[in-house]
């Protein structure tokens, strides 16, 4: 493979913990990560449900109106879309939840997320500028919080970790703050 990048001899060796190319490295990483609070699944489900309801109303009305004109049979449009909504409410939240993971150790925070578009972010804690613990109305209902890390970077100036128990989010916040302080001294 001449045009593909070759690791030549002076490239520093990859450490032992790295996996061999044929095993799925992402699954291994996920296993070593902390999962979000399981309550987050329910939160995702509820917000998907609310969104679905809001979208379904006009679709059902439109469907009824067109069917009334005799152009289509009733529910020809609404039925498949409802199926899609059901999928989004019952199937996707757990999958999305499973793709999230975080790990805070050794002066860094690692956050992985996404399935089709997978992102794996590392923030060195001493690059954190300030920290938010945010709660939306639904999150408050479930006692969950999002931890928002602000950095000075123009890309990734905010790194969000949702679906944490309030106490855990606050604990992480304090840890990060203490780390920043200790680092300064």
């Amino acid at each position, binding site marked *: 493979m001449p*045009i*593909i*990048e070759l*690791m*030549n001899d*002076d490239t*520093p060796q*990859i450490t032992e913990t*790295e996996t061999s*190319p044929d095993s799925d*490295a*992402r699954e291994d990483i996920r296993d070593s990560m902390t999962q979000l609070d399981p309550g987050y699944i329910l939160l995702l489900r509820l917000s998907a449900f609310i969104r679905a309801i809001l979208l379904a109303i006009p679709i059902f009305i439109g469907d009824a109106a067109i069917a009334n004109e005799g152009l289509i049979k009733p529910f020809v449009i609404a039925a498949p879309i409802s199926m899609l909504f059901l999928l989004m409410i019952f199937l996707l939240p757990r999958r999305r939840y499973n793709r999230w993971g975080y790990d805070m150790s*050794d*002066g*860094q925070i690692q956050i992985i997320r996404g399935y*089709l*578009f*997978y*992102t*794996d*972010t*590392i*923030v*060195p*804690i*001493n*690059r954190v*500028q*300030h*920290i*938010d*613990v*945010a*709660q*939306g*109305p639904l999150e*408050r209902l479930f006692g969950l919080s999002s931890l928002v890390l*602000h*950095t*000075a*970077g*123009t*890309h*990734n*100036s*905010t*790194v969000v970790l949702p679906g944490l128990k309030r106490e855990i989010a*606050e604990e992480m*916040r304090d840890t990060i*703050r*203490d780390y*920043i*302080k200790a*680092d*300064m*001294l």
Partner: protein
Amino acid sequence: MDNSIRTPLDDALKSAPENKANASDLASDNTAFHLSPLSLIAKTITGLRSLIFPILAAFFALGDKVGYIFLLIGFGIFTLISLGFIFWAWKRFSYQIGAEEIRIESGILSRNARSIPYERIQDVSLEQSLIPRFLGISAVKFETGGSEGDEGTLEFVSVDEAENLRQLIRTRKAGVAKISPVDKSIATGDDDAIAQDEVIFSMDIKRIFTLGIFNFSLILFAVIAGAAQQFDFLLPRDLGDIIKYAVDSYDERSTQIKGIAIYSQIAAIVGLIFALIVMGMLSGQVQTFLREYGFSLTATDRGIRRQRGLLTLTDVVMPLHRVQAAIVQTGAIRKRFGWYALKFTSLGSDTGKESSHMMAPLAKDEEYWPIAHRASIDAPAEGTYFYRAHFSYMAASMLFSAFLIAFIFCLSTILPKIFDAQKIATSMAIINWIWIVALFPFLLSCIGWRYHFHAMDDRQIYVKSGFWNQKMTILPMVKVQTVDLAQGPISQYLKTADVKFGIAGGSGLSVLTIHNVPMETARHIRQNCINAAKNIDFSDLIKAPK
């Protein structure tokens, strides 16, 4: 030096009697404080101000008595509701002065608890616009050097409280880290410090002229063309007549006249192209001279001082410890002559709209690397191996082009069967050739791949990109803020990833990215950066060396 940072306000603060029961007096315990109740009035007035135009519009639109009554009622209800919300928001907003941090809690339905460690606060600014000034209150803004503006704002607290807060934070900060006097003196701008400094780079007239040639641009032409349209009665008639004559006679299809017409047409076109080139040259020169005339860089004890400009003189000092990355730029043509431009990415943006700071618009290797070296950024060592991206770089655009071509192919087979072939002959001719256009995305990404390289040594990351505008970004690993590994569906399948770097300053739109490297290389690059970044705190990084 220290005297220069003290503002009159600080001195006034010193003598101010501290008899008010303020948050800052009770700083040690974590009591939550509300904003000044006067801020309710200030916010209401500001809110009402934005209602003036809608109300005026409604007033003129309605224009009868019943309408006015409804307008009044509507206005009243709206005001009451917004008053309610302003009060509620005030009630739910509180701040704490902790031992290590400022905590701001806010939000009516969505609650947000922000924690700003003292070490991160770069500056506290007090802002008083007209209404708050009358009310004796002030907005307090905490700046942390992050890229967003909204890092922490208290709108509004009483003036005394604001000043106490500022003083308190300054002392708190001083307790952990000394405020660097160097940064502050820039703001005050005392000139005696730069008196005996060394010029490290400058451009003479000849150099600026050369740069002007490369800055060939048709902007001035566009302006003149626009003006010409406005004032076409001032232009000589002849040129227009010749073209008009050529076009008209062409239409007549008389072979004899056609011969002449083609000559005059060619003459007109050649003339036009010539005029365009002259215009482009001229406009490049004008723009360049206006901006770069008298370009000089001086090394001062506060950083590199840049002066340039013909009519608008700009004089900027770039503190070297604030430089985050360097960009070496060149064009496909100017590279052949060995000309490059050097820019620094730094906290804050350059004058004008440029997101990076121009340090040398046209310079040779031996001229600009020493400048970069002053910011501890160095050229890649001789023989550094630059890696190409994995071929998956082109995969997405290849699929896209293939899809387009397949679609066009389907059209060209199906359409003649549905429609009368005679009638759609012209459309078919277009469809039969349009696939070449469909190849463009793929070809462009091939060129992109051909010119995308990266390299890494023990201290810096190098990323090259671009064919016509070539660019190499040099990023010292310690300056990294965050590192992402990103994968789309294709790169997941091929086990490659994009490495995206969060850097302070620069443009948020063009993220420094190493595209499509094998996953393990990507991890390796990232871990090197993170390890480097972990060892030095960001506050130390942007602090001036003692």
